C-alpha cells in the first residue's frame, strides 16, 4: 500500500462499490437480479461492502425458469437468509400458464429466452426503476459497449445506437415513469478477475462450480447434465463424469466440461489457462453469431 497505490482488484472493487451506492442514491426502487451464478454472487457481496454495516437496501430478484439446478435454489435461499434481504421470484411457469409466453418445442428447447417476458413483467409489477446485474463487458461482444447505467425504454428495450454517453464517473440515471435502468457494476471485470476476487475474499459459491461426479450426456460438444427436463434420443447414453460448470444457467442449456478443479485455487489456475470463452458451453449463445445482441435489445439480462 506504499505510494498510495491500489491493485487492479482493489480498483475494480472500489469502482463497483461506487456504482452500487449511486444506484441507491439515484433510484427509488432498485433491485439486484440474482441468478445464483458467480457474477450475481459477487455483485451481492459488493453490495454488502457498499452499505456495511447496514444491510443491503435492495431485494434480490430471481427469474426462475423452473429448470434449475437444485443446488442453485438451496444456495439462493441460504444467501437470502444470511443477508437478511428480501427475495422476489418471477416464475416463467406462470408466464406460460397465463399464455404470456410460449414454451419452445423440440430437442433443444429451453426456457432461456422466455425469461425476458417474466423479467419485464416482474419489473413492472414491482415498479423497479433500476435492476443491478452481474453482466461483464468481456463476456460477449454485444456487451462490450454496454454502459454502467444502461437505459431501457417503457418496453424494456435497449437501443445500442442511442445510449447516453458516460463520462468520468458521473452517472445519469434520470428516467421517466415506466422506464428503467440496468446497472452493471462488474462492467470492467473479466472472468479471471471474478475468480481471483472470489478466492481472495473467500466468497461462498454453489458446489456446481467445483469438479464433481455427475450423470451427463454428450450433446453439441458439451456435457449436458441429466435432468427431468431434458429429452434424450435413442443414441444418447447417460455417462458418469467428473465435471464442473463455468457459468450457471438453466440446467437444460448449461454444459459442463471435464475437470479436476475441486478447489478455488485450482479453478483460478484452470480459468487462467483456459482456451475457450466461458460462454462457449452455453447453448443460448450458440444459436447465431448475434444471438446475445438480439436478446438484449428485447430486454434480456
Amino acid at each position: 500500500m506504499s505510494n498510495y497505490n491500489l491493485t487492479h482488484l482493489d480498483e475494480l472493487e472500489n469502482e463497483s462499490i461506487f456504482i452500487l451506492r449511486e444506484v441507491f442514491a439515484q433510484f427509488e426502487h432498485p433491485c439486484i437480479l440474482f441468478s445464483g451464478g458467480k457474477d450475481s454472487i459477487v455483485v451481492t457481496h459488493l453490495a454488502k461492502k457498499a452499505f456495511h454495516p447496514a444491510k443491503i437496501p435492495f431485494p434480490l430478484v430471481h427469474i426462475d425458469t423452473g429448470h434449475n439446478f437444485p443446488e442453485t435454489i438451496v444456495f439462493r435461499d441460504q444467501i437470502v437468509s444470511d443477508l437478511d434481504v428480501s427475495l422476489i421470484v418471477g416464475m416463467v411457469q406462470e408466464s406460460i400458464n397465463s399464455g404470456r409466453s410460449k414454451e419452445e418445442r423440440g430437442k433443444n428447447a429451453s426456457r432461456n429466452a422466455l425469461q425476458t417476458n417474466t423479467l419485464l413483467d416482474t419489473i413492472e409489477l414491482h415498479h423497479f426503476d433500476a435492476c443491478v446485474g452481474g453482466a461483464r463487458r468481456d463476456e460477449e461482444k454485444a456487451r462490450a459497449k454496454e454502459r454502467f447505467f444502461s437505459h431501457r425504454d417503457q418496453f424494456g428495450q435497449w437501443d445500442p445506437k442511442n445510449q447516453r454517453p458516460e463520462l468520468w464517473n458521473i452517472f445519469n440515471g434520470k428516467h421517466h415513469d415506466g422506464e428503467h435502468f440496468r446497472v452493471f457494476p462488474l462492467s470492467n471485470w473479466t472472468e479471471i478477475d471474478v475468480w481471483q476476487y472470489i478466492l481472495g475474499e473467500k466468497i461462498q459459491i454453489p458446489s456446481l462450480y467445483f469438479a464433481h461426479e455427475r450423470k451427463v450426456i454428450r450433446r453439441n460438444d458439451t456435457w449436458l447434465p441429466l435432468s427431468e427436463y431434458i429429452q434424450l434420443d435413442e443414441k444418447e447414453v447417460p455417462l458418469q463424469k467428473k465435471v464442473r460448470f463455468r457459468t450457471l444457467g438453466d440446467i437444460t442449456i448449461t454444459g459442463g466440461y471435464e475437470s479436476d478443479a475441486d478447489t478455488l485455487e485450482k479453478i483460478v489456475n484452470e480459468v487462467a489457462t483456459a482456451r475457450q470463452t466461458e460462454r462457449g458451453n452455453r447453448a443460448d449463445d450458440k444459436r447465431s453469431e448475434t444471438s446475445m445482441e438480439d436478446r438484449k435489445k428485447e430486454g434480456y439480462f
Partner: protein
Amino acid sequence: MNAYLNMELLRFTTAGSVDDGKSTLIGRLLFDTKSIFEDQLNQVKKSSDRKGLANPDLSLFTDGLKDERDQGITIDVAYRYFSTPKRKFIIADTPGHIQYTRNMITGASTANCALILIDARHGVVEQTCRHAIIASLLQIPHLIVCVNKMDLVNYQEDTFQKTKKDFERFSSKLDVTDIRFIPISALIGDNVTKRSEKMAWYEGSTLLYCLENLHIRSDHNHIDCRFPVQTVIRPKTKAYHDFRGYAGRIAGGVFKPGDEITILPSGFTSKIKTIDTLDGPLNEAFAPMSVTIQLTDDVDVSRGDMLVRSNNQADLNQDIEIMMCWLHNQEPNPKAKYIIRHTTSEAKAIIKNVRYKLDVNTLHRNIENLNIGMNDLARIQLRTTKPLLTDSYRKNRTTGSIILIDENTYETVAAGMII
C-alpha cells in the same frame, strides 16, 4: 498467482482516423498477449475465410454490434480487456470517424493513457491534431504516438522521424508532458509486443513494454483532500444503533482518522472518527477508494456535500467557466435550463455566455460563429441555481468535471471541464 494479485490497472484509449489500423492494433495486442480464446479465434477465422482472406483478420476481434459489422465501421465506444503478468488493461476503443469527437471524449475521460495512431504513409493529418488536442484537453497524463504501417514504407527511419518532428512541432502548443513515439506494424506485429528486427535503428521499447511500465502512480491527486458524500449510512440496528457514516469515493488527497475537516457548503468543522469498511477500519484512505467516514460530531451532512481539509478547500462557485463538448444532435437552446451533475451533487444551470468556439483541429478560437452543434467544443460560462464545490479540471479530474442533462428528455447533452 501472487504476481497476479499485485497487478496494477491501466486504462487507455485509442484514437486514429478510419483505416489507420486501430482495430488491427487492438486485435494484435489481444492476440499476442494470448487474450483471445479458441472459439473467438475460430469465429474470426470463419469470417475471414468468408471474405476470402488468407490470414485471420485481427481487426475482427474488436467488432462490436451487428449494425457496425454490416457497415464495417465502429460507431461507439467499446471496451476491451487484456492482461499481462504486470498489468490489467482496459481499452476504450473509440472510432476515428469525423463526427465522433464525443466518443473519443467519452473514452478519454477515464484514461491514463492515449494511443494515437498515424498511418506512416500519410504522416500527421488533421485528425491527428484533433486527437492530440482532445487528449490534452482531457488531461490524459500519457500519450503514445504509434506510427503504424511501417511495413508499407520499407521500415524507413526517415519517415518515422519526419512524422515525429511534425507531431512535436504541433504538440508543443499542447498541455501534455509525457509523449512517446513508436514505429510499428500492427498487421505484422513489429514493435507491438516484440521488438522489430527490421527497425534496428529504433532504440526505444515496444508498445506493450511501454504500456506495462508507464508511471501511473501519480495520476491521482493525493494532495487536495476531497470527499464528495454519496449517501448516508444509518443501520438503525441494535449493534450499530448510533452509527452514522458518510459513504463516498475519495476524489482527492489522503484522509486519516483524527483529521480536522470542514463540511462544505455548510462550513461546519469536525474530525474524522473512523474510516470504515466491511474488512475493518482503515488508518488512511486515498483516491480512488470507496469508504465510509464517521465524524466525531453530530453534524448535518447529506449527499452532494463534500468533506475537505480545513486548510485546503474547494471553490464554492455559482458562475462556472468550462470547456464544453456538446454531445447531442439537438443544438443547445439559449433559454433552456439544464440539469447539471457535478460529483454527487445536482443543480440547474443555464448557458450564460459562449465565449468562443474552439477549432479542434487547429486550436483556433472562433468568436464570429458561436452556434454550437454536436461534437463542438466551446468555452462557456454557466450560471447554476446553487453553488457547486469545484476545482479546476487540471487539478482534479473528478471534482473538475460536469455533465449537462436535458430537463425534458433526461439525455446527457454536454460534458464540461472546469477551467
